[in-house]
């Protein structure tokens, strides 16, 4: 089932939660609604579910208008952040609830319901806990039960509100993978809300980035990461290193930091955005950039060594005035950067926002070691 969101507005008192939001959610795909708190993502999900009504606008499932349809008639599965399991019912009774709530004519026979509950328990790998009460389960188990409960009636649409938000990191990772498999097996049209960019990029087929009640950008995760449309999306998706300054004679500078920007005609304010992997660290300044930084911390965990640096003689708009650069373990072993060392950041690819432009220009300094042969992409 496709989901069409058409011109949805929602206000809570003076607060505009959703501002004329329109979206197309493709069938059988896992879509993430990503944004900071207060961006309206949960409100949008609840309006799609029918748990909240919009002030204006239209919701359609596969072209059929469901705006006026009550949530119980929309045939959706909804999973809550805090599980919302019925505390006085056993796991099995919880899962059976949806089937037992069907109108008498559609309701399967008792034995049939029991069989389906057993299947679902097998699927969530918790058949041994059928007779337990929710209070006796761990967070991850509760959320799996909640998922099983929501898909017991075989809805075509599965909506998840920060489904892993209340779980610890390890469980979250397992459950994420498990949800992905579940989705691939059953081909729901799924939407899940998250404020965790990593979760959104890893899990989804399509990401909808939201901010202050507006949709900022919709795209596949890889595209979104590679080509953010706006400063907001850039900032929100992963760590970013910013040099904000003034462009004069083809060079962006602030304090004692400068970067030559080939082929630029713009004069005045500009911001250069660099991802951690688009920067190298060198012990001497490069011909095209002078970005002195002092090492603040080195983190060895993960497939890459993460180095945090503080600008020396200039300031950055990045979070906490910190730049983050990823280097390989091989490089780390060679250079042995330690806290307090001075390094020069050498940008290889960057994204330049000039003036009030919302779209960045991607700049590349490929093979930029002297003599600089530069080219402009886009």
């Amino acid at each position, binding site marked *: 089932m496709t989901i069409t969101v058409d011109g949805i507005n929602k206000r809570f008192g003076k607060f505009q939660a959703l501002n004329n939001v329109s979206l197309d959610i493709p069938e059988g795909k896992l879509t993430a609604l990503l944004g900071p708190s207060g961006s309206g993502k949960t409100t949008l999900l609840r309006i799609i*579910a*029918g*748990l909240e009504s919009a002030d204006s606008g239209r919701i359609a499932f596969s072209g059929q208008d469901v705006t006026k349809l*009550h*949530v*119980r*008639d929309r*045939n*959706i*599965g*909804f999973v*809550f952040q*805090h599980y*919302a*399991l*019925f*505390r*006085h*019912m056993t796991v099995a009774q919880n899962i059976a*609830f*949806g089937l037992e*709530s*069907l109108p008498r004519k559609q309701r399967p026979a008792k034995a049939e319901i029991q069989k389906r509950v057993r299947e679902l328990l097998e699927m969530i790998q918790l058949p041994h806990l059928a007779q337990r*009460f929710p*209070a*006796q389960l761990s967070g991850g188990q509760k959320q799996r039960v*909640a998922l099983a*409960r*929501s898909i*017991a*009636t075989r809805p075509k649409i599965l909506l998840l509100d920060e489904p892993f938000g209340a779980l610890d990191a390890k469980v979250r990772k397992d459950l994420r993978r498990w949800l992905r498999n579940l989705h691939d097996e059953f081909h729901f049209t799924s939407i899940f809300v998250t404020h965790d960019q990593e979760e959104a990029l890893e899990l989804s087929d399509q990401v909808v980035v939201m901010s202050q009640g507006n949709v900022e950008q919709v795209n596949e995760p890889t595209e979104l990461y590679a080509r953010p449309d706006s400063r907001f999306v850039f900032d929100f998706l992963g760590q970013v290193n910013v040099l904000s300054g003034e462009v004069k004679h083809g060079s962006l500078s602030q304090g004692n930091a400068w970067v030559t920007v080939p082929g630029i005609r713009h004069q005045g304010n500009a911001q250069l955005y660099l991802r951690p992997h688009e920067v190298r660290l060198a012990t001497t300044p490069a011909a095209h950039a002078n970005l002195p930084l002092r090492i603040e911390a080195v983190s060895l965990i993960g497939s890459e060594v993460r180095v945090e640096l503080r600008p020396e003689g200039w300031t950055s708009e990045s979070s906490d005035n910190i730049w983050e650069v990823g280097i390989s373990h091989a490089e780390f072993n060679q250079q042995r950067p330690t806290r307090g060392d001075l390094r020069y950041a050498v940008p290889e690819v960057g994204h330049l926002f000039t003036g009030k432009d919302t779209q960045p220009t991607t700049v590349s300094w490929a093979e930029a070691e002297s003599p600089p042969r530069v080219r402009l992409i886009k």
Partner: protein
Amino acid sequence: MSTANQAGAVIPQRLPRIGNRSKRVLPGFGLSLGISLLFISLILMLPLTGLVMEVSAMSFDQFWFVITDPRVVASYKVTALSALAASLFNGLFGLLLAWVLVRYEFPGKRLIDAVVDLPFALPTAVAGIVLATLFAENGWYGQWLSKLGIEIAFTPVGIAVAMAFTSLPFVVRTVQPVLEELAPEDEEAAVSLGASDGLVFRRVIFPALWPALLTGVALSFTRSLGEFGAVIFIAGNMPYVSEVTSLMIFVRLQEYDYAAASAIASVVLLVSLVMLFAITLWQARYLKRIEGR
């Protein structure tokens, strides 16, 4: 736990229980429990001991004779049935009232919320006189009801009305907080699974309210068993028909027969105690299940 104690660093895994020798996080357990027990002894236990002492001065035959006196037994029936009717009525009406006060916003809501406690604030005798006047044959309600052939004042029904009036707050005040804390997600989850409103109430809301409601009804019932002031003015106090047990106690007291009064009182007390205890036990089991372990 024991290794932690030896190391001198205690990180309790859960709140300490009575009898657990490990160091407690909150200080003053001994002091606060001591003061509590002292006051329970002075205010509750000592008078009850007096009652038991008074009763124990009687032989069992005397005791049995007093408490099985036909007029007293008739009063048990009247009291128990009226209290049952009153507490069941309060169970229904109190639940409705709590529901309205928690779930809806309307002008005057705070006022109604305050008025609910009025039966506690009002001297029960005043309540009794007011009710008797209202339901008397020429009273505001009584004149209409008598036309329909319904008599309330000076009948057991009147007793139930007075009991219901004085014990309504018990139900409202026990159900209200539970209703307030009910997670809206539970209902939303049920509705998203296709449940009708009736089903949501029956299978999701009511089971959560049930322990509190039962406690409220039980409190209302035991309070009604002992109600005196409000009841005697409206009851009519006809022997074998509309005499309540507390009146029987009062009558014995007026005859300076303290032993007999204590004997009857001990019956009421025992019934109340057993009932409250049973409900506490049942509730503990039920809540244990919901809250885990």
